[in-house]
């Protein structure tokens, strides 16, 4: 249960620092937030049960690749130059209407997916359904179809494939 809390804390830190990294004007500031985001990802890797990947994330991503970025930023001596155009693009007024339209489309696709889930439940063809979400319903639907196709073809499941079921 403690791990779950740690996961959510690390995920929140990762999201916040990534948003800040993408929205900074100064490249060096964005780089620092990006490093924080990568460290948070490393913590998530460790919690999920991949300690070697966590070490690789810190050593290669936050170490080597970010040092390349720092090197280039310092080499070019980037100060407050450039990106006047971005001030126009990042103004909120430009983004309200497209974001509104995207939200409408998102609501529509969530509605469609959920109603298809309801249809499937009424149909009762697929035995494995989930209560968690539509994404998992799609995944398990594909899996069940794959499983049925394999059974029909009469082949034996390889050990690697059998892990999926």
């Amino acid at each position, binding site marked *: 249960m403690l791990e779950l809390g740690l996961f959510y804390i690390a*995920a929140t830190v990762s999201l916040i620092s990534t948003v800040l990294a993408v929205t900074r004007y100064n490249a060096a500031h964005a780089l620092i937030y990006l490093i924080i985001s990568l460290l948070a990802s490393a913590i998530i890797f460790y*919690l999920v049960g991949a300690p070697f*990947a966590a070490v690789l*994330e810190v050593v290669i991503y936050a170490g080597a690749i970010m040092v390349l970025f720092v090197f280039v930023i310092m080499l070019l001596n980037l100060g407050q130059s450039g990106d006047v155009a971005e001030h126009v693009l*990042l103004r909120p007024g430009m983004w309200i209407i497209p974001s509104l339209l995207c939200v409408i489309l998102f609501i529509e696709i969530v509605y469609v997916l959920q109603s298809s889930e309801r249809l499937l439940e009424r149909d009762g063809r697929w035995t494995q359904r989930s209560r968690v979400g539509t994404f998992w319903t799609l995944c398990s639907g594909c899996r069940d179809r794959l499983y049925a196709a394999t059974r029909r073809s009469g082949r034996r499941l390889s050990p690697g494939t059998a892990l999926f079921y």
Partner: protein
Amino acid sequence: MNEAIVIPMEHGLLLAGILFLIGLLGVLVRRNIILILMSLEIMLNACGLAFIVAGAHWGVADGQIMFMLILSIAAAEVSVGLGLLLQAHRRFGSLDVDQASRMQG
């Protein structure tokens, strides 16, 4: 970790998807080449996160193998991209991608 699979896969995949979207928005919105490259890194990292979460959920090591592949791809991509960036800075005098939007035909 003795109990490694307590984290629900949907939340991990959701986090990876949101991170990927943030990176995609960064690529689309930003005009600074350095920040575009950093957004690409965010997207690659989100892919690696999705692989590792899914691999941990099914208990196979393939996710971590794919993460290593993504890691090496990211390193190669960044070194090539930064080389191109240095060249573009030398030629155009700035890091704005809109400066390079016209061909000399």
